[in-house]
């Protein structure tokens, strides 16, 4: 392909799974992707 004109855009940007997405976003969620309600949840 004449790469000067036709490109490819990687929507993942190198991130493989949702836990990597969350870590890259700086999230520190319970078990990686769980919202935790102290009032209703259990003590971790």
């Amino acid at each position, binding site marked *: *392909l*004449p790469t000067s*004109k*036709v*490109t*490819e*855009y*990687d*929507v*993942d*940007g*190198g*991130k*493989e*799974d*949702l*836990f990597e*997405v*969350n870590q*890259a*976003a*700086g*999230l520190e*969620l*319970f*078990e*990686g*992707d*769980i*919202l*935790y*309600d102290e009032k*209703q949840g*259990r003590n*971790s």
Partner: protein
Amino acid sequence: IIGDEYLWPTTVPYYLEDDLDINAKGVIMKAFEQYRLKTCIDYKPWSGEENYISVFQGNGCYSYVGNRHVGKQSLSIGAGCDQTATIEHEFLHALGFWHEQSRADRDDYVTIMWDRIQGGMEHNFNKYDDTTSSSLNVPYDYDSMMHYSKNAFSKGTEPTIVTKIPAFSDIIGQSLEFSDSDLLKLNRLYNCTRATTFLDTCDFELENICGMIQGQGDKADWEHVTKATGGPDTDYSNMGRCTGTGYFMHFSTISGTEGDTALLESRLLYPNRNYQCLQFFYYHSGNPNDKLEIWVREYNEINPSGTLRMIETITGPPEPLWQLHHVNLDVSTKFRVVFKGTKGAGSSTGGLSLDDINLSETACPEHVWRIKNFKSIMENTPRGTAIHSPRFQSKYGYTFQMSLYPSGTTTYPEYLGAFARLTSGDDMIDSNLTWPCPWMQITMMLMDQNADIRKRMSNQRSITTDPNVKLPGSTMYFWDNPRKVGAQVTDVDGTKYFRGSGYGTYGYLTQARALSRDFIKGGDAIFLLSMEDISNMLLSQPLPSTTVPNTTLPTTTLPTTTLPTTTVPTTTVPTTTVRTIPTHDLCASVKCENDGVCVIDNGVKAACRCAVGNDWWYHGDRCQFKSSNQDGVVMAVVSSVVVFAVMVVVMVVVTVVSVECLKNKYKKKMNDMGAGITTRNVHA
């Protein structure tokens, strides 16, 4: 999670918030369809139910576990989360599932390498005892889409989770689709007896041929065989891998006369939607004039014996290959699917064969890209080299293709890379299309060729043509006419056409995974491709009280979008219509606060219905006040204290007054007697 209070109704209300990415909205709909196909869990737009799932674009992908009864329960599908598997994962959390490796018995199956976990991240490897979490009598599942990958939260390159059976080391964490065990647990938790959109599957392995019947009034029958004269030599389900199994149905056209027909009719089926997709594998080894037709026999009160209706003729010359076919049906009453084989003119050395039939109330994929000898292509294509599918024309007129890196790229050598591109098509058609191409979602699915559609763990990724995105470092639009922004290429037959830039991922699927399950069958891989217009997703989901279709819509300017690598200035997006409330609507002048919704009371008066939770509620004519159970307790305590205090005061006052009155009374009496009282001992 143990506790009926965490369950949702089997039809879960959802609300897609406006901030969601358009592609994410489309993928959420696809994830819902997988739930409907494989479980009894259905999803419906929120129509005022007390509790519902609000899907929004947060900064990541996350959810609560189970129904928390908080009214509006949030679930985030942020940037990078718009994959079917990720969305299914988050909704499994919402439905009440923890991660697989947090099971009470997980230490029997995996070893957590605590010294390899990033500092402070140990809490991610909690486990729950069997009073909190139930495995629902399903064995530990390395395939689960709720399982972490081996390197989760690792501070280096060494795995944090080591599977006790080494073969599963690279299996864990590869979220493709629901595993068999995921489905078993979900269906057990919600007492599912049937899936919402699944109708039938048949691989013809059992002698009862899934309740199919030989049609009446035909001249010949379909035979239940493991091989047929003239081909095929094996079935498609097992590809002859298992001795004594591997059946399919065959109609031989070697003998008989021209015009002989054989009908194979499915059992009775009861549709819920008025559209279905029939998928099957077909082997044609007869004469080119032999043909297969798909009919439906529909039953209603007028025709209790059923009426036949022709749907489609399967055409094409004989080919030594099990071909995948899709047929769209549009049945809304009780029916049977009828496979009608007809012997054509001329001699035949074979016949027609059928295997792996699946019928579901879903939309059929539009295009099939079959890559023969795929393993060989993976091994022999130079790394960083793409192969391209044929060009496919969508029903909207746009022509597109898929590019695949079978041996990965330098950066991602272990993966398959997959990209979607627009291409030029017919000049006349292209010139009448809207450019840049607006809001078309292209889905690329590597089909797991398991015979049963419910057990398939296919890998799919979708991208959407945002007409506002620009090419990196350019003022030109990414999804503009490929004749304008693409490069001219030459097809294998010498045809020249234009190919636009690719949008997709270099990490589509690991090559190891592509070699597993039934992604490759008979040496071939099958990609299912489709393009769908999802511009309707630009509209806000109607709120319960304001569902007003076909009303006058105002225009709104959307935010501009550019790719991260692009430095060109942003531009204004073309105006887009969004839903609004008609001026005559009584709710137009009423603003309900705090997520309250406006309803028309008795058709004459607008009133706010306020959001309520488990222990709190809003009230007031605009839902402007909030109260909770705690408020009630405080009120009760304060009221009791006040009442008690008032009663004490009243009693003291009454006592004092009574004593004073008595004192005065006796004092007056003694004064009236004129002397003091002489006391004496009256009993002495």
